[in-house]
């Protein structure tokens, strides 16, 4: 029973859903009027990526979803994404990370069906690591931080389908003590996204 409850608690995806939908609701409600007025592109897409953690040279698979609204000829817009690194178990430890992001940006170069886009925003990172050595000895260390989110992508648009490939970085903000000794927490990754747009 204890382990069953723990599993529910550790599946933080549901905890982040209110955040994600909250961002989406705000974004859509504020911008929908502008979108109707100026013409817009609304996209819904799934994301798959490879991310490197700050302190290791190993890449981890991530998966996620995103919604985006671009207007003024797709030059400016806002997107909200949620990415999750699935649970990884190794040598008696389990860890997981989640990134909820709100980005602003748009396309700045276009050629035929391709376009270059750049987005910048803020992200909330949640992660944990716990020992799986024994059920009786339970240790879990959680961490949460905000980060600058930066991305640069090449997109291909074909009618109502949008695909993109690009670089996505999260630069975790340090605490004041950490800033004084020049510490930051960068996550680097490549993200492929595929979705539909109207």
């Amino acid at each position: 029973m204890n382990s069953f409850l723990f599993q529910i608690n550790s599946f933080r995806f549901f905890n982040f859903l209110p955040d994600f939908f909250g961002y989406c609701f705000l974004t859509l409600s504020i911008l929908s009027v502008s979108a109707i007025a100026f013409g817009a592109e609304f996209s819904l897409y799934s994301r798959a990526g490879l991310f490197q953690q700050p302190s290791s040279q190993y890449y981890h698979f991530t998966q996620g979803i995103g919604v985006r609204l671009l207007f003024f000829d797709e030059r400016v817009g806002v997107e909200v994404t949620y990415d999750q690194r699935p649970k990884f178990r190794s040598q008696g430890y389990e860890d997981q990370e989640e990134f909820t992001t709100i980005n602003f940006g748009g396309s700045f170069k276009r050629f035929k069906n391709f376009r270059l886009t750049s987005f910048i925003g803020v992200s909330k990172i949640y992660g944990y690591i716990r020992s799986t050595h024994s059920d009786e000895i339970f240790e879990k260390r959680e961490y949460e931080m905000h980060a600058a989110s930066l991305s640069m992508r090449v997109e291909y648009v074909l009618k109502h389908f949008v695909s993109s490939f690009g670089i996505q970085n999260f630069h975790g903000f340090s605490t004041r003590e950490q800033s004084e000794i020049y510490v930051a927490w960068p996550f680097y990754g490549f993200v492929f996204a595929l979705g539909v747009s109207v």
Partner: protein
Amino acid sequence: MKPFIRIAILGSFLLVFLPFYFENNLLAQKDSMKSWSLQMKAFAPNAGGQDAWALRWASDFKEWMAFTNFDLYAGDYPLIGLAHGWRHSFCGLKCPINPYVQAGVGISTAGPFAEFIWGMNLLYLIRLDFSSHFILQKRLLSWGYPLWIGVSVPTW
């Protein structure tokens, strides 16, 4: 802040902005502005940051850069590299606040690498970059410079 540093900062601003006071059309006469930047210590996951230096020469569309990182070694030597980048400036070097994105390729003592930058020039003199390097060795290594801070000098 020590008086000397205060005077040095004030003096630097005066050196740059005083010409504009006397000749407010100075920027308009020059179509292509350039900028030299020297970047120093960068933030990093390890305490103390990265002891890294970069010298960059940029226009609104291109940039040449040379850098070294004394915290990373390729064999017996510190990581040293040279790169050329293509830049998209959202306002241009003429603007007091100029955000830009940039992608480049280069060679280093650890192998070929690609560089991606999201940065900003502030008041012609300050440069802030979020930068990442992807170095191709036997596998793809990522190394970045979150908040790489530098000083710039505008030129023509």
